C-alpha cells in the first residue's frame, strides 16, 4: 500500500506541481492550502507523512508542526523559504524531521520523503539494548526509560539506536546524516544537532549536563558505555 502524504502549501502552483510530482513517485497525496485545513485533514485521514510549508496563512507551519507533534510521531518534512535563518532550526526543534529549501527539485523532495518514511517504517532486527535504566527494543520500535515508554519520533529513535549500537564510538555528524537521514553527501549538520538536543531532553536525567549522549567537540557525538 502506498504511503499517504499530506502536502500543506499555500501557493496553488507549487501545491499542484508538488502534488503531481509526489503522485508520480507513487504516493497518495492529500493537499491542504492553510494551517487549519492541514490540521483538519490530518485528523480525518490516516496520514503517513506531512510535507509542510512553514509560511502559511491562518495558522503557520510552526503551529501546525507543534499541533501535530502533540498527538503524533508522523514524519514531517518542512518546505523552507530560507535555509540560513533560524526558521529551519525552530521547525526542527518543534519536531520536524527534515527540510527542503525552496526552490527545490521534485526529485530531491521525493528522496527526503522516502528517507523519512523508511525511518518510520517498521521494526529493525536486533537484540535489545540496555544501558542503565534505558532500554531500547529495535524490533518493538520502542525505548523505555525506568520502565516508562519514551515518546520518540522515528528519527529520534533511529538516531538513538544508531548511537547506542556502538557505545564509545565517536560518530561524526556526516556519518549520522548518512545513516539516519540517508543523506548521500553533506547534509545540514543542524539536523543532527537539533535531533540530539531533542533526544537528550527525553533520555538524559539532566539534559543540560548530558551523561549518555556526549558531544566530542569539533568531531561529533558519542554514546557513553553505561
Amino acid at each position: 500500500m502506498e504511503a499517504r502524504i499530506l502536502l500543506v502549501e499555500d501557493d496553488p502552483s507549487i501545491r499542484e506541481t508538488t502534488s503531481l510530482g509526489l503522485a508520480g513517485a507513487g504516493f497518495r497525496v492529500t493537499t491542504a492550502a492553510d494551517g487549519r485545513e492541514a490540521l483538519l485533514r490530518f485528523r480525518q485521514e490516516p496520514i503517513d507523512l506531512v510535507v509542510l510549508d512553514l509560511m502559511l496563512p491562518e495558522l503557520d507551519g510552526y503551529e501546525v508542526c507543534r499541533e501535530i507533534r502533540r498527538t503524533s510521531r508522523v514524519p514531517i518534512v518542512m518546505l523552507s523559504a530560507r535555509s540560513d535563518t533560524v526558521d529551519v532550526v525552530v521547525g526542527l526543534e518543534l519536531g520536524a524531521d527534515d527540510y527542503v529549501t525552496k526552490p527545490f527539485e521534485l526529485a530531491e523532495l521525493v528522496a527526503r520523503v522516502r528517507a523519512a518514511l523508511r525511518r518510520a517504517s517498521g521494526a529493525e532486527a536486533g537484540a535489545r539494548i540496555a544501558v542503565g535504566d534505558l532500554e531500547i527494543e529495535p524490533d518493538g520500535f520502542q525505548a523505555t526509560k525506568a520502565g516508562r515508554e519514551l515518546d520518540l519520533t522515528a528519527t529520534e529513535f533511529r538516531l538513538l539506536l544508531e548511537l547506542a549500537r556502538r557505545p564509545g564510538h565517536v560518530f561524526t555528524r556526516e556519518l549520522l546524516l548518512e545513516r539516519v537521514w540517508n543523506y548521500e553527501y553533506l547534509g545540514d549538520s543542524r539536523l543532527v544537532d537539533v535531533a540530539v538536543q531533542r533526544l537528550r531532553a527525553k533520555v538524559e536525567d539532566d539534559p543540560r549536563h548530558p551523561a549518555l549522549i556526549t558531544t566530542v567537540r569539533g568531531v561529533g557525538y558519542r554514546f557513553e558505555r553505561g
Partner: protein
Amino acid sequence: MTARPRAIQPGRLRRRLTLAFALTAGIAATALAAGSFLLVREARLDDSRDRSLEQSRFNLVLASEVLPPEGPEALLEAYERRGSFETVLLVDGSSFPSSLSLGEEQVPEDLRRLVADGQLAYERTTVADTRYLVTGGRVSRSGADEAYFFFSEEELWDDLAALRTILLAGLGIVVVVAALAGALLARRMLAPVARASTAARSLAEGLLDTRLPVERADEFGAWAASFNEMADALETKITALSEAQARERRFTADVAHELRTPLTAIVNEASLLAEHIERMPPDARRPAELLVTDVGRLRDLVEDLMEISRLDAGTQAVRPERVDLGSLVAAAVRARGWEDRVRLETAEVVLTSDPRRIERIVANLIGNALEHGGRDVSVRVGADGVGAFVEVADRGPGIAREDLPHLFERFYKADPARTGHGTGLGLAIALENARLLGGDVDVWAEPGVGSRFTLRLPVAKPLRDGEGGVADDEQA
C-alpha cells in the same frame, strides 16, 4: 586604506609652549630685576655719597674751628664723638689716623690731587676688605692741612648683595612658576586638541556618533562646535548612504526571495515536463528541452543572488567542524561525477572550518575550470607555511591581464560574447565565502598557458563562531 596615526610626539607642542612661557617670563623678569637692581644701586650710592659729602663739609668747618687752637688729637676726638666714619688728618706733613689700619698711604692718589687743587672730592676704595667712600678736603684757615674721611659702605654693599640674591631667587621662582603655568596652560589649551584628535580618529574608524564637548566659550569651544557640525553632516551623509545601500541590498534580497515561490513552481513544472519530453511531438520537444534547461539556469541565478544577498547582510553563520580537506575535495568531485575530468592530488590536511562552505568554493572553482579551462584540470590539496590550500589549475586559454582585477566582481564576464552557463556570481560568492572562513582566493593566469585559482584557508586561526554552536551547549 589604512588610517595610521601620524607620527607626532604628543608632548612636543606642549614642551615648546612651556619653554616659550619660561623664556618670556625669564627675559622679562631678568630685565626687570636687573633694571631695578641698577636703579636701587645708583640711588643708594648717590645717597651715600651725598650724605658723606655733607658730613665732610661739616667736618671741614669743624676742623677749621678746632684744629688751629687745639691740634689734631682734639679734632680726632671730636670726630669720634660724631661717630660713623674714620679720619686721616694730614697736618703739617704728618699723618694722624683715627684707626691703626689707616694712614696716608690708604688715601687714593687721585683724590689727593683733587684735594690739592682745593676741591672737596670723593673716591671709593677698599682697605683691608672694607669698602669705603673716601672724601677729602682742605682745612681752611690752616693752609696746607688736609682731612680725609673714610665712610664705610659695607652695609650698603651688603644690602645690595642681599637685594641681588633676592632678585635672583625671585627670578628663578618666576621662571619656574612661568614654566609650570605654561605647562599647565598648554595642557589645558591642548587638551581639546588631543580630544579632537581622538575624536577624529574614532570618526575615521566609523564611530559616527563621536562628538566633542563644547564646554568653553573660546576659540576651542567654537572649534569643537564646528567639529561637531562636521561630524553631524558626516553622520547624516554616511547614514543616508548606508541606508540607501542597505535598502538596495534588501531589495535584492527581497527580489530573490519573492522570486522563490513562482520559481519553485516553475522548477517543479519543468521537472514534471522533463519526464514527458520523449512523448512530445517533435516540434514541441525542442522548446520543452530548452525550457527545462533555462529553468535550471534561472534557478541557479536566483540561488546565487540569494546567497550573495545573505553574504551582504553579514548574517551568515559559520558552522565549524573538523574537516579533512583532501577527503572533502575528493568527495565534492565524486558527488558531481567529475572524477574522470579532474586530476586530483590530495594530501591529508585537517583543519577546523565549515565544510559546506569549503565544498561550495571548491565546486565553484573546479566547475569554472572545467567550463572555461576545458581540459587538463588538476586539483591539488596541501598545506604550506601560510595555511591550507586547494589549488585548481587548468591549461585553458587563460585570462587576459586586464580582466584579472575584475574577475571577482559580480556579473563580470571576461568575454561578453561568451555567455557561458555560469550566473556571473560564482567567483564573487566563492571569494566572500572564503573570506567568511578567514581565507582568500587568489588567481594566477597567463593567456595561452592556463589559469590557476587557489583557495587559501587558515589552519590554526580559530574561526568566528557562528550559530553552529547548537551542539556545543556543554563543556567540552
